[in-house]
């Protein structure tokens, strides 16, 4: 064990058991998986992406590129989990990835020997030819050899929540500047949300030894968090990563509600998606330490200096027994102090700079090699560090024995989120790092994310920034003072050190296995733009988006191309800042909750009476009603059609769109909306209407009924209900706002039933004995408002089936009651319920165009309704419908088809060919839009759009169905198959 006997922010009274690659270990509450693995001296935790190099733990945060493991098992297995960000829990199970047969002995590490073919751009070079082999051979080979973890392939057993939140100030990151800002804003009464990726708030205060106002930094942080938690206006979100900045001051964040538990508590989601709207946001994301580029810098045991300090100070874990430090700034010296304070020997401190910092005075250098203007040029050991070779300023090489190398190449402000908006960061000569020059509206970086690296300046910056926000929002800021900051770190120049003359594999991008020589190769091949370099070498394209690698790579490129870094520039990052699960984006919208389901008022009645339902948009509609003994859907549908045409049937048509149009100009508006005339419609009458789009094509059809001079009731098809509502609002608000007319959707307010068949009048008369329904009193297309059992109803004599038929509407809450009463009144007449399939069969028998025919590409003329276009008035689509292309007599238009052989089946989608024509696209003269078996006629019938249309009635053609490989000879006929004179519906 390498757990220190004292210190740390772990709870030693709560030991936790866990398993890695099948072996049992134990850690403490407060550990991350990485800390617990190090405490158990597990150093080799992963194999790299391309070369299968042994890899250890590099960092102590979410920027980790190496220590990716598969967390949990079975359906909950989550690949590529960063061990450095996974909170330890009792019973945790993790396993390593990308190795075979085992982590210690990985046969695919042979890739290293083949590394010359895996160099930059290898995808483009090595596997170029022959192209035919790519899919069969090369790609599977690469996919097997290179990669990370695999998905479980099982359905996700967890649920995900979504929450929308609004605040005055969103603080991203709870380090020194974030805490100071949140405290200032919280005390000033702002609505504050403080989000931090980590399980504990405090950021670097948890990892460094510092003192604020007489308390240890970590204790000060805990005190601030406690105070913030007491404010009702402050929301604390630990374990929450803000992953993106969006338009309109919106932020996306994922709260890992249950990921620190073996599985979510009952009723709890695994994660919660937060959509946060913030008047202002402060990016207090801190800074990320830069690695140094030297051969063997990826060996297990080489770590970021700040990570070594974090493991010592926060987790009381010694990541090694003897350390060498390689640094280009003061951070490495600080880590040396932390190591010595924990009783761990420092074998060497190598600084790229010429002078020792003041900090060095506090170090015991008695048994320590110090090399200035030096570099580590080699690492001994493969699966763990065994020693390092140091070259000093004079070129002299010394070897030291060590099992830990702590490196620090300076710090990069963590500004990724701020570049989401297409803001390319700019190089700061002063800081030697990229900073945000421009930020998204209402968003600003603070603390070290803004280049204010010292603890004192970060705290001050947080207070300053929050105070400004408070003032901007017109409130008075609380007085803030944070006295007596003692920092052991101090500030130093943040120089960028780029090595020259490297031999061996020195990694720039650890996760994608991109080395310094890859960058040089890319530069020599002409890939000198930052964006080209990125794509050619894949540097920065791994899941960490190059948080560690980017700047070093750009430094190398600048060196190669003799440019400055400022000239070379840097890339922008895009959401998500850290990877997020797809499940959390989907949230509750999966399975049956994928979209809302709409039920009509008598849905339950239909279900109780054998209905098979079909999805029509969001609606569930009864497709047919299965009677005892019926095993084939066609049996049910044929029976329903015959019963309706021979007696009476009832169908729930409540899903049709319904719109009330009211006002003095209602008639004028409808005249302009419909192609035909509605101002002439008498009160108490309904009329079929056709709507065009402004481009002249058919949009929708339905009926409009006039209940009073200034009151119309419009119906639309089920599919177009929302679209027509929008269209009407567009017409009355945008095109003709001067019209005094209102429109409102009443689709959900009315339940509507169609009663059709020769016996429909008798049924209705039995239901409504007080209303005179004789043909003389209530003609075809008559309509009126009446009462049934005291409740208002609307009655229409309209027909879709071609039979004598009525539609009756009642308030939706009484829909089922009305339906049951009609069934009771209709029982003596043998009434049957029928579904959408029978409805469809009857409308095809009558040649009524529906959605299949009104497909957005057909004109009124195409559908045989050209004469409906009024010439007496302006209406939407009038002018464009007259274009030659839309009135060409050669256009395909609506006809009926019947098979020459009555036993043959016609199918929708099949193409029409002239007899004897070769079946190819150029010869297609039409296609079937709707087809059905007609129980009335006893054979299959279809509606089709055919070139020349009506002119060709009587012609024999071939119906060619390539998909189903059938050819059916057919005869073109009139589209109206049943009762062409329309006598039934008027009788």
């Amino acid at each position, binding site marked *: 064990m390498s757990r220190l006997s004292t210190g740390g922010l772990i709870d030693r009274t709560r030991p936790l058991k866990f398993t890695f690659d099948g072996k049992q270990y134990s850690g403490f509450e407060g550990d991350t998986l990485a800390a617990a693995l190090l405490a158990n001296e597990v150093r080799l935790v992963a194999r790299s992406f391309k070369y299968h190099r042994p890899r250890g733990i590099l960092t102590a945060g979410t920027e980790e590129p190496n220590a990716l493991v598969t967390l949990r098992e079975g359906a909950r297995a989550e690949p590529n989990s960063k061990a450095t960000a996974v909170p330890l829990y009792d019973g945790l199970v993790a396993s390593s990835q990308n190795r075979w047969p085992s982590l210690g002995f990985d046969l695919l590490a042979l890739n290293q020997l083949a590394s010359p073919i895996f160099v930059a751009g290898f995808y483009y070079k090595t596997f170029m030819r022959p192209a035919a082999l790519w899919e069969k051979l090369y790609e599977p080979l690469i996919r097997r050899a290179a990669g990370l973890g695999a998905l479980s392939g099982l359905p996700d057993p967890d649920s995900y929540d979504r929450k*929308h939140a609004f605040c005055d100030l969103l603080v991203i990151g709870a380090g020194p500047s974030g805490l100071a800002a949140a405290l200032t804003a919280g005390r000033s009464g702002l609505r504050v949300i403080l989000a931090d990726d980590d399980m504990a708030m405090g950021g670097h205060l948890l990892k460094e030894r510092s003192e604020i106002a007489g308390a240890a930094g970590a204790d000060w942080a805990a005190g601030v968090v406690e105070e913030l938690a007491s404010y009702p206006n402050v929301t604390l979100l630990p374990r929450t990563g803000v992953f993106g900045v*969006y338009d309109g001051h919106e932020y996306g964040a994922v709260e890992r509600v249950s990921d620190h538990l073996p599985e979510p508590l009952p009723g709890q989601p695994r994660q919660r998606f937060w959509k946060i709207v913030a008047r202002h946001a402060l990016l207090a994301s801190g800074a990320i330490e830069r690695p140094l580029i030297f051969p063997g810098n990826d060996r297990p045991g080489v770590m970021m200096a700040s990570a070594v300090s974090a493991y010592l100070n926060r987790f009381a874990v010694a990541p090694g027994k003897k350390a060498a430090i390689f640094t280009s700034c003061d951070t490495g010296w600080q880590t040396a102090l932390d190591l010595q304070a924990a009783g761990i020997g420092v074998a060497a401190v190598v600084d790229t700079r010429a002078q020792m910092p003041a900090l060095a005075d506090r170090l015991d250098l008695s048994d320590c090699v110090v090399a200035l203007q030096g570099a580590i040029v080699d690492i001994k050991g493969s699966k763990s560090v065994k020693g390092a070779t140091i070259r000093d300023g004079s070129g002299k090489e010394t070897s030291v024995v060590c099992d830990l190398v702590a490196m620090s190449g300076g710090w990069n402000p963590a500004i990724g989120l701020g570049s989401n908006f297409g803001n390319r960061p700019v190089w700061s000569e002063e800081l030697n790092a990229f900073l945000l020059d421009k930020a998204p509206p209402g968003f600003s970086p603070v603390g070290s994310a803004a280049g204010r690296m010292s603890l004192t300046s970060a705290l001050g910056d947080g207070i300053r920034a929050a105070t400004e926000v408070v003032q901007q929002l017109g409130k008075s800021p609380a007085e803030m003072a944070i006295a007596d900051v003692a920092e052991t770190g101090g500030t130093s120049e943040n120089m960028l050190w780029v090595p020259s003359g490297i031999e061996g594999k020195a990694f720039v991008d650890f996760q994608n296995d991109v080395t310094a020589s890859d960058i040089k190769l890319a530069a020599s091949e002409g890939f000198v733009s930052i964006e080209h370099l990125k794509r050619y070498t894949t540097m920065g394209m791994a899941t960490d988006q190059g948080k560690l690698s980017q700047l070093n790579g750009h430094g190398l490129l600048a060196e190669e191309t003799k440019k400055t870094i400022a000239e070379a520039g840097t890339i922008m990052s895009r959401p998500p800042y850290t990877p997020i699960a797809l499940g959390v984006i989907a949230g509750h919208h999966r399975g049956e909750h994928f979209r809302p389901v709409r039920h009509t008022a008598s849905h339950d009645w239909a279900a109780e009476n054998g209905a098979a339902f079909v999805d029509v948009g969001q609606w569930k509609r009864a497709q047919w009603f299965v009677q005892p003994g019926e095993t084939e859907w066609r049996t049910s549908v044929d029976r329903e059609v015959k019963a309706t045409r021979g007696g009476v049937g009832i169908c729930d048509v409540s899903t049709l769109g319904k719109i009330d149009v009211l006002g003095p100009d209602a008639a004028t508006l409808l005249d302009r909306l419909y192609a035909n005339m509605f101002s002439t419609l008498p009160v108490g009458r309904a009329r079929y209407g056709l709507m065009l789009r*402004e481009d002249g094509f058919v949009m929708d059809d339905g009926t409009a009924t006039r209940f009073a001079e200034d009151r119309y009731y419009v119906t639309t098809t089920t599919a177009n209900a929302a679209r027509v509502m929008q269209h009407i609002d567009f017409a009355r608000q945008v*095109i003709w706002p001067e019209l005094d007319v209102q429109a409102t959707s009443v689709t959900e307010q009315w339940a509507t039933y169609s009663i059709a068949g020769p016996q429909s009048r008798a049924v209705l008369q039995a239901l409504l004995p007080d209303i005179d329904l004789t043909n003389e009193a209530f003609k075809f297309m008559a309509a009126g408002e009446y009462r049934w059992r005291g409740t208002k109803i609307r009655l229409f004599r309209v027909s879709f089936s071609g039979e004598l038929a009525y539609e009756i509407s009642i308030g939706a809450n009484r829909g089922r009651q009305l339906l049951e009463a009609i069934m009771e009144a209709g029982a003596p007449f043998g009434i049957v319920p029928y579904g959408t399939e029978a409805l469809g069969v009857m409308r095809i028998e009558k040649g009524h165009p529906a959605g299949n025919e009104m497909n957005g590409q057909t004109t009124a003329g195409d559908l045989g309704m050209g004469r409906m276009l009024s010439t007496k008035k302006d209406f939407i689509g009038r002018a464009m419908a007259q274009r030659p292309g839309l009135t060409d007599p050669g256009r395909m238009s609506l006809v009926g088809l019947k098979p020459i052989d009555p036993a043959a089946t016609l199918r929708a989608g099949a193409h029409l060919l002239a007899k004897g024509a070769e079946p190819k696209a150029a010869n297609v003269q039409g296609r079937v839009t709707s087809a059905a078996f007609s129980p009335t006629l006893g054979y299959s019938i279809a509606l089709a759009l055919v070139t020349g249309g009506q002119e060709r009635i009587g012609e024999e053609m071939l119906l060619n169905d390539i998909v189903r490989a059938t050819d059916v000879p057919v005869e073109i006929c009139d589209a109206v198959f049943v009762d062409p004179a329309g006598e039934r519906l008027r009788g």
Partner: protein
Amino acid sequence: MRIPCPYCGDRDSQEFVYRGDASPVRPADPAEETEFFDYVYLRENPAGPIDELWYHAQGCRNWITLTRDTRDHAISAARLTSEGKSA
């Protein structure tokens, strides 16, 4: 993204239906076919501020004219379309 509905206040853009350029004005019929052609098919596509139509479908059902900068999506004005053109 947030849309400032003049009737409802700031609302999530998911509540709205986007239509596009608000500048085409429907020609008074009778008009030349070319005028209707322009109205139906031709749209400006500027890099910069543009007046455009949004429909608050899941809210007040008002058509709204927004002035939005296509380069950064900044919305500088919003009004009910039925209340006429802005100055």
